[in-house]
């Protein structure tokens, strides 16, 4: 039966080439846009190297400091994060590891008299144990290096190419931001969309030129906390919330700020907290962000779906005789709905196939263009499944209504060639 349906579907597609082109164009272009967007989101949020433990990692990505008169929302200072995380792993066994890291900033170097900009991040030693970088050479710096202020650095492969012509770099020195560091490791490039891990050069926090950062509550730091399991998230969140509350007593400039807002979030939760300005310590409402993503996707799909519904309705006009014949020979209304939905899903899957190929081409072009530094956008199984889901959404929603209209066609009128 399905074979018979598909034979008809193929013929109908071939018969009305312009409509078929418009349908496939609409489906595939929509899918390309959605799949590229999905691949981008996947690169930010999916637990992939080096953020392999992303599914059980929480972070204090941003905090708010407020008083009646003034409000700050942004990155935390090292002092605040250090106070909140101090002894956390020993006092809360659910927390396996914690790490403090700076937000990457650009740093200047001079190579043969030419100014070179690199992304520069300061981290502690635990950073390398929570994240799983692929080392091409050497090894990460340790917690001891951080504690003792050793001027060591891990660089990425592109920086090695720039500074050392691609030759082995471990043991050599690199001058950056007015300081000199000995290279101890070289890692594979990390895409810029991996906001926690990304940089060109990583050095210990303690190599800061001044130590004033140690007391600051406002700065350019964030922290990540590796839980033993996701089930521990609620307990960790409430502990972090309590510690942030307790840290209010130590605000360095109490004449300006009185209260601290923020919390331990998943990455999705952190974006949600920023977008929706959630002041609650406890919950960042990541579901709101998911809701927004879903709503945007639906809105984006409505237009081509409506278009497909119209095209499908007009395609049915051609087929009233066939509908009448099938009814006369024993097809019930529901059988006809099934037939038309199968045909439509078939059409959308062809569109999805074209969309997949186009999306792969767009992602490959994006990767090659360098528009997103070190991007490694690709169509993995997850993105493919999302694409398939989107295609099925198209197929079902754009097929069911026309199929229902078609199935309600009176057989006598259908045989006379009356229109739906």
């Amino acid at each position, binding site marked *: 039966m399905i074979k*018979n349906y598909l034979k*008809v579907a193929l*013929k109908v597609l071939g018969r009305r080439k312009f409509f078929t082109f418009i349908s496939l164009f609409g489906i595939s272009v929509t899918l390309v846009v959605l799949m590229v967007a999905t691949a981008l989101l996947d690169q930010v949020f999916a637990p992939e190297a080096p953020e392999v433990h992303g599914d059980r990692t929480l972070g204090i990505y941003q905090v708010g400091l407020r008083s009646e008169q003034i409000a700050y929302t942004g990155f935390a200072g090292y002092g605040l994060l250090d106070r909140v995380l101090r002894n956390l792993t020993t006092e809360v066994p659910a927390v396996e590891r914690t790490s403090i890291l700076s937000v990457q900033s650009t740093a200047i170097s001079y190579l043969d008299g030419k100014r070179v900009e690199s992304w520069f991040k300061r981290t502690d030693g635990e950073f390398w144990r929570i994240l799983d970088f692929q080392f091409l050479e050497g090894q990460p710096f340790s917690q001891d290096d951080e504690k003792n202020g050793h001027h060591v650095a891990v660089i990425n492969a592109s920086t090695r190419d720039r500074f050392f012509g691609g030759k082995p770099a471990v043991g050599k020195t690199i001058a950056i931001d007015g300081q000199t560091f000995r290279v101890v490791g070289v890692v594979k490039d990390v895409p810029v969309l991996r906001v926690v891990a990304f940089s060109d050069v990583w050095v210990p926090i303690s190599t800061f030129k001044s130590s004033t950062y140690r007391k600051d509550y406002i700065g350019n730091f964030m922290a990540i906390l590796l839980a033993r399991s996701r089930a521990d998230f609620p307990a960790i969140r409430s502990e972090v919330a309590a510690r942030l509350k307790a840290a209010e007593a130590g605000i360095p400039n109490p004449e300006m700020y009185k209260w601290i807002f923020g919390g331990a979030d998943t990455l999705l939760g952190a974006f949600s907290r920023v977008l929706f300005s959630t002041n609650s310590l406890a919950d960042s409402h990541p579901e709101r962000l998911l809701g927004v993503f879903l709503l945007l996707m639906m809105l984006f799909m409505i237009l081509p779906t409506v278009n497909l519904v119209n095209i499908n309705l007009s395609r049915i006009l051609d087929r009233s*005789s066939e509908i*009448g014949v099938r009814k006369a*020979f*024993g*097809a019930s209304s529901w059988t006809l709905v099934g037939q038309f939905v199968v045909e439509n899903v078939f059409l959308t899957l062809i569109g999805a196939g074209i969309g997949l190929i186009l999306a792969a081409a767009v992602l490959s072009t994006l990767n090659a263009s360098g528009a997103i530094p070190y991007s490694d956008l690709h169509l993995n199984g997850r993105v493919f499944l999302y694409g398939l889901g989107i295609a099925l959404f198209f197929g079902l929603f754009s097929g069911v209504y026309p199929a229902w209209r078609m199935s309600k066609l009176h*057989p006598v009128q259908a*045989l006379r060639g009356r229109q739906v």
Partner: protein
Amino acid sequence: MIHLQEVSKLYRTDRVETTALDNINLDVGKGEFISVMGPSGCGKSTLLNLIGLLDEPTSGKVALDGKAIDRYGDRDLARVRNERLGFIFQQFHLVSDLSVVDNVEIPLLYRKMSNKERRRAALAALDRVGLSSRTRHFPTQLSGGQQQRVAIARAIVGRPGILLADEPTGNLDSQMGDEIMSILEDLNANEKTTIVMVTHDPRMAEKTHRVVRLFDGRQVQ
């Protein structure tokens, strides 16, 4: 086998009410071959559609094999049409996107049977109408007579007890019309298929067992 009792059919629009059939009583026995005649617009095709369960009477009763069908839902009607009835249309109504053999298979798609069984039955039906050599062709590659033979193969492939033919020779020249008529006569004589045929052609009507004449929706003979 077919029983119509005081069957009327009205078509209503906002302004006009048209009586297509008025108080028809008709019994067709098993193995009978009857023709329905009358001028255009007298209700012949409407009568055939009511017998074929493609339309419902405004009043009166239609029964097949002793069972009244007035309480049947869409699914039951579809099942009865599939198992008991076969249709032959003046315009052939073949699906132009499907090959000859795929067209003939259509009624069997709505039965539980394997692809192989379905194909075997379709080829046998095509053989029965003398079209074994055209199974892979498409309808547009065939002559009118050949298309109508495909339509007959499609109508008989499910071995229905009743064949309903709406002017099956109306679009054919006399030689092709005779060929089609001889196939129908053969089906009636050898397989005891009950046939109700609408026709304008007295020559064809003469070959049937009985003629039912309609005029302005009323049965006149």
